[in-house]
């Protein structure tokens, strides 16, 4: 493959990923106006945001073509930190419900 062909193919790939991300972003706006409950809306929007972010990390930030070691390093450390932050939610629900500990 010549340099010009390579350039055209990567430009095409970027445009396809960009359009996919735009469509997912538009879907988030559609979900915002759909008649569903708050938790359902939150879940759907979060899933769409994760897919959108994964596309950006893998193809815009080129993590897909970096070494597998770097990919796993980034994914494992980031996901671990994100999961570790979720421990406080039960207390958040307790604050609004006031039960059972506040009684």
């Amino acid at each position, binding site marked *: 493959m010549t*340099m010009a062909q390579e*350039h055209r193919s*990567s*430009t095409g790939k*970027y*445009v396809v990923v*960009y359009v996919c*991300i*735009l469509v997912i*972003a538009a879907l*988030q*706006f559609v*979900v*915002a*106006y759909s008649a569903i409950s*708050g938790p359902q*809306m*939150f879940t759907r*929007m*979060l899933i*769409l*945001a994760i897919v*959108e*972010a994964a596309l*950006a*990390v893998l193809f*815009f*930030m080129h993590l897909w073509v*970096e*070494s597998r*070691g*770097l990919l796993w*390093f*980034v994914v494992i*450390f*980031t996901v671990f*930190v*994100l999961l570790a*932050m*979720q421990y*406080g*939610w039960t*207390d*958040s*629900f307790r*604050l*609004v419900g006031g039960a059972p500990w506040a009684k």
Partner: protein
Amino acid sequence: MSQADLTMGGHSAGVMEQPAFSVPAKKMAMWLFIIADTATFAACLVAYGFIRNASPNWPRPFHSITNVAIMTFILLTSSLTMLFAIDASKAGDKARAFRWTMITAAGGILFALLHIREWFALMGEGMTLLKNPWGTGLFGAAFFSITGLHLLHVSGGVVALVAVGLRYQGGRYNSDDLEITGLYWHFVDLVWMFVVPLVYLLNLSH
């Protein structure tokens, strides 16, 4: 044994050691920064979710999605223009790479201006850091701190794009430096993908 050998713990082979994950040091530093900054934004968004969940009278002040939709479109498009800049620099087309980098920076400036206009509109409706006319006063603090931190990143990114772009054009930086700046710019875009649904779309007044 030379001083260099002693510094490397006596292993002379250490001098020729491959970089971690075969990634150049500057790029690795940017990835480490991105991981750390992900934790910063995640902490802000989790704290925001925590207080939103625990506040029964959470405000829903956003009447329209037009402004945030335009801002999202601009930021996503600026990520694409950044990729065009990196592509052009890898192909050795310096003028085109510089032009796309400046277009990306212009996108960042436009995004920041729209964001500031939105802030002023909310402040005009009576929203401050500690109070607002719609519900719990915590909303202002949460909204301004999250979007403010993001805006700070966008502003820093614009400065970095212009500085690196100029130095690239002047021959002091190469395409790798442009690519590393691009990593940061895509990260700023990525954070916005989570800020939009959590801070804006879940707080629409409909």
